[in-house]
C-alpha cells in the first residue's frame, strides 16, 4: 500500500484530500499544517509520497521539499498546489519534487499521480512542461555551463505541454512508452540541483528565500 503524507495549511482541504485518498485505498500516514512540521514529522512517518502545497507558513513548500528529500532520499514529493506562482513551482521542482499537479485536478488524476509518483515516475502537467521548457531557455542564455535539453527531450516536453499523453507521444514519435517517460524524467533530473548550497543560492537569487 502506498504511504502518503498530506502537507497543506488549509484544514478543510487537508482533511478532504486525506479522506478522498484513504477511500481510494491509499494509506495516509501523516498530515502537516506547515512546512516545518512536515520536515519534523516525515522521518517518523516515512511516507512514500508527500503531497506538498507550496504557499505554506513557517517554511515554504520548496524549502520543505529540499529538506525532506535530503533526509529521506527514497521519499518522493508531489506538489499539489492552487498556486500558479511560476517561481514557486520551478523552485519546488529544482528542490527535488518529482511532479506538479494543480488542486483543480480530478480525484482520478490525483490518485493516478500519487501511484505513479510512488512507482518512481515523473508527473508532468502541461503547465509544468511549459515552465521547464522556459527554464532551460533561460539557462541557455545564461552560459554554456548550464544544463541543456537534447532535441528529443525538447520535442517530448513540447508535446507534453500541448496536452498529449505519454501514450500519444510515444505513438507520434514512434518511441516506446518507457522511452518517453525517460525523456521526461531526465529533463527534470538535469534541472534539479545537486546540493543544498546550490539550492540556497538559487532560492536567494529568485527571491524564494525562507525569510521571504
Amino acid at each position, binding site marked *: 500500500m502506498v504511504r502518503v503524507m498530506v502537507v497543506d495549511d488549509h484544514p478543510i482541504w487537508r482533511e478532504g484530500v486525506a479522506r478522498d485518498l484513504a477511500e481510494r485505498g491509499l494509506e495516509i500516514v501523516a498530515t502537516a499544517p506547515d512546512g516545518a512540521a512536515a520536515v519534523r514529522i516525515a522521518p517518523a512517518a516515512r511516507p512514500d509520497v508527500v503531497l506538498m502545497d507550496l504557499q505554506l507558513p513557517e517554511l515554504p513548500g520548496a524549502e520543505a521539499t529540499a529538506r525532506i528529500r535530503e533526509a529521506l532520499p527514497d521519499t518522493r514529493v508531489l506538489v499539489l498546489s492552487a*498556486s500558479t506562482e511560476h517561481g514557486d513551482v*520551478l523552485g519546488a521542482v529544482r528542490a527535488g519534487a518529482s511532479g506538479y499537479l494543480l488542486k483543480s485536478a480530478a480525484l482520478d488524476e490525483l490518485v493516478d499521480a500519487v501511484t505513479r509518483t510512488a512507482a518512481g515516475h515523473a508527473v508532468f502537467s502541461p503547465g509544468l512542461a511549459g515552465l521547464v521548457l522556459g527554464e532551460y531557455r533561460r539557462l541557455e542564455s545564461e552560459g554554456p555551463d548550464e544544463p541543456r535539453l537534447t532535441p528529443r527531450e525538447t520535442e517530448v516536453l*513540447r508535446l507534453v505541454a500541448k496536452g498529449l499523453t505519454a501514450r500519444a507521444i510515444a505513438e507520434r514519435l514512434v518511441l516506446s512508452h518507457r522511452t518517453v517517460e525517460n525523456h521526461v524524467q531526465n529533463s527534470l533530473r538535469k534541472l534539479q540541483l545537486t546540493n543544498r548550497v546550490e539550492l540556497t543560492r538559487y532560492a536567494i537569487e529568485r527571491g524564494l528565500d525562507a525569510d521571504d
Partner: protein
Amino acid sequence: MRRDRAHPHLVPLWRGLVVYRVVALVAAIVNLVRYGDGWARPVLGLLVVAVMAVWTALSSLRYLHRGDPPTAIVDLVVTALATLSTLLVESPEQIAAGDPVITTVWSAGPVLALAVALGWRGGLAGGVVTVGVLFAVRRTLDTDLLYDAQLLLVAGLAVGLAADTMRRSAEQLRTATALEAATAERERLARDIHDGVLQVLALVRRRGDELARHVDADAPAVEIARLAGEQEVALRRLITSAPTPGPDGTVDLGARLATALPARASLAVPAEPVLLPAAVVDELAAVLREGAANARAHAGPGAGLWVLVEDDGAAVTVSLRDDGAGIPEGRLEEAAAEGHLGVAGSMRGRVEGLGGTIALHTAPGEGTEWEITVPRSRHA
C-alpha cells in the same frame, strides 16, 4: 477648492517668503531712519512703516497656516497702497531725484506670494501690477525702474515655476502612494481568496467527481461541481496573472492569454514574462480567441484545449491544440476555393500582419494544432 491648511509641499517656499518679508521690513525701517527726517510728511511715513510691520506679521501667519490665494491678493492691494503712499510721504523733488519708495524691496513680497499660491501666472501678474504701481509713483521709465521691473518679473516667474513643479511632483507622489496602497490591498485580497475561496471551490469540484460515480453525470449537483471547478480556475488566473505592464509599453503575453482564453484551456508558459508590444499581444490574443472559439465549434465543448507559449529570444511561438475530430484533408483549401475565407484565413491574415507565420497540423481523429511564430526583431 476649499483648503484649511497650506499645501504641505509648498511650506518651504512660504517659509522662505516670510523670511524675505521680515528682512525686507528691516530694510524699509533702515530706509525710514536714514531718509525719514527729510521726507515731506515724516509722521505719515512712520505710520505707513508701522502698518507695514503689522501687515508683515499678519500676512506671515496667514501664509504659514493657510497659504491661500485670497491672502496673496489682499497682500498685493495693501502693498500697492503702501507704495503709492510714497506720493504723499515724499516730496515730488525727492521722488524725481530717485529716492527709494517707502516700501523699498518689501514691495516684492506679494509677487512672490502670488507666485507660490497661483504658479507662474500668479507670479507674472503680481510682477506686472507691482511694476505698474512703481511706475505710477516714479512717472518716468529710467534705468532704475527697468532694473526693478526685470527683477520683479523674473522672480515672479521663477518662483511660480518652482511652485508649479513642487505641486506637480506632490501630485505624482500622491498618485503613486495611492497606487501602492491599492496594489497592497489587491495582494491581500488575492491571499485571502487563495487561502479560502479557491480551496473550497476545488474541493466542491472534487466532491462532484465522486458524486458523478454514483449518480447520473447530468445531475444538477454534478453540474454545480463542474461550474465550481471552472470558477476556481478562472479566479486563480485572475488573481495570479497580474496585468502589470512591462517596460516601454510592452505586455506579458502569458498573463494576457490567461484572461483572454476560456478557463478550461490549459495554458503552459515560461516563468519569466514574455514581453511584447501591447498591440502585438492584443493581436495574438485575438487570433487565439478565434482559434479557441473555432475549436469549441468544431471539436465540441467537451474537447480539451491546450496553449503553449515559448520564447527563444528571437521569436515567440504560440501553439494551440485541441483533441477534437480534426479537419479532413483538403477541407480548408476547398473552403478557400469556394470563397469562404473562414477562420483559417482570418487567423493567417492577422498573423502575417504581424510579420509572423502560422502553420496548421490536422488530420481526422487527431484534433487540430496551430503553431504561430512571431519574430521579435520586427517589434523590438
